[in-house]
């Protein structure tokens, strides 16, 4: 679980946070509700997870709530990998 969190955290920081941003992303930092990741960009984050872990996340489960923190994303990934 922790490994998944670290991988997702690294990806989010690389892709959605700029060097100049005064944003510290932790495992429980809100991503969607804070505006770091918007609803359109969730699609590329979902695509990353599906490719990285060879899973399919149903659209019904790809909600703003499920994608709102690294913790909740990791739970979603673990559900589909286990």
């Amino acid at each position, binding site marked *: 679980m922790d490994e998944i969190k670290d991988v997702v955290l690294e990806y989010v920081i690389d892709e959605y946070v*700029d060097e*100049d941003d005064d944003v510290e992303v932790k495992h429980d930092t809100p991503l*969607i*509700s*804070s505006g770091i990741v*918007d609803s359109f*960009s969730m*699609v*590329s984050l979902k695509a990353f997870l599906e490719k990285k872990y060879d899973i399919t996340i149903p659209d019904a489960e790809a*909600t703003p709530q499920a994608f709102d923190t690294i913790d909740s994303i990791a739970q979603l990934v673990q559900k589909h990998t286990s």
Partner: protein
Amino acid sequence: MSNIGSYEERRGNFDWGIAREILGWRDGELLNIGVACSDRICAAGKADRIALIWEGFGDERRTYTFDDLRIHSNGFARFLVDQGVGPGDRVCIFMDKIPALYFAFLGILKAGGIAQPLFSAFGDESLEVRLESAGTGTILTTQKHVRKVRKIVDRLPDLKRIVVVQGDPDKLKDGEIFFDVEQAPRVEQFEAHSCDSETPSVLHYTSGTTGQPKGAQHAHGSLWGQALTTSWVLDLTDDDVYWCTADPGWVTGTSYGIIGPWSLGVTQCVLDSGFTSERWYRFIEENRVTVWYSAPTAIRSLMRDGEEVVAKHDLSSLRHLASVGEPLNAEAVIWSRKVYGLPFHDTFWQTETGAMMIANYPGTEIKPGSMGKPFPGIEAGLLDLTTHEPISEPGKVGLLAFRPGWPAMFRGYWRKPDVYRSKFVGASSDARPDELRTDGALWYVSGDRASVDRDGYFWFVGRDDDVINTGGHLVGPFEIESALIEHDAVAEAAAIGKPDRVNMEVVKAIVTLNPGYEPSGDLELSIMNFVRKRLSPLAMPQEIEFSDKLPKTRSGKILRRYLRALEWGEDVGDLSTLEDD
């Protein structure tokens, strides 16, 4: 009783001068939208009324009175004039929905400048195209977004001033200016620029099928149309707390997120935070929102999240709901009536029209899925798809068009008079923009297809061009394709809309690859993120299809309509111009 009263009576006895009546406008008053939304409301005895309830991420909350609006917009106006900004100069606003955005918008107009709001999620390439087109001399931004400006400033010779209005002043680069209007000395008096109804006010960029986005230029006279439609369609009154969910980077966010409500002295709310159903409902509950103007994409997202989350909140303050951005499907109207006890009233208008053109009105029958009926004073018609002759048969699909002359109509596309002329059926080749916008014998063609039923209700059918309407925002395929082929792997590209349950359409790209590249999931993700950063999340293809070749005409033009028809399962039409295999 609603503000509009009887729609039929209003339609039969209409004059745009009614806008002056509802505003209490006196002869000889200074027409300047910046003043009309602040000083004028204070002079009417509402200086202490709350103008803006603002909430940001982390439940940060601030409130501002109309007197605060007056002072802080004066502050921006004084600052800009002192910096050398003069009448007609373009001043870009590039920031999130923070309070300074609203003060800056009014301040620019008071100073006589042209406000050019741009969506803060735009990447550096989208930003550059629009700043270059407008010849923008000043940009107001924040520490969060200034990095995108830094990447392009060297290629923008007209851009003289980069002003950071929020953030850490110690992190500015050489030549950048820091200005926090709330920390600056109060400017009690500012002599606003004297305008008339034709003085340029706002420049909103919009996308077309070909070429880069165009700047739709509006004028201070738009106030009459925006105030009257706000009153009659949104039904705002003195006691309301109004929430327009649109970002002022788009026209709804200025026409109905600033000008309409504040010219009427109405309290409005802004939520500058990411979307979740729970957060939105809590915002309505805590602020006792009464009138809510939102978009079909958001409404469908709320539908998806279900009724359980609704039941956790007290939404009894709501009394009127309206929607704009794309056609509101019948299911959403029925659902909102069931769940909120109120139907969403769909409205139709565009960046170019500046104000609502067709709407469903409080107190009149709603046909779920219909755009509604033309606003009183607006003559809407349908033109034959081929001959452009007016058609009258109920149910027949035609080009949706309007007789020119309404107050909020755009005055031109910035530096593109020929493109402006092309929007009018029946125009002579040498007609000037001022002739086009006042000639009631012409038709302004919207670019949308629609039909009208026997009761006079209009029904949206689709776009008449290749522009993609995603989440209520128009995205031009050319801009996306131009970005796609800048990716090292992409040789050729076509961008089309594909159906989407929530956003109506999302962008799909069909690409061919350069030698040495093979289709893969990693490559698809790389291309998606490349476009997202260059343009915006809206423009990011949500699907990329790899193809060996793209369908083209014999002259080499990519046949987007063919690809779109395949995607939507529609008739591909005449393929006689298709390049032979």
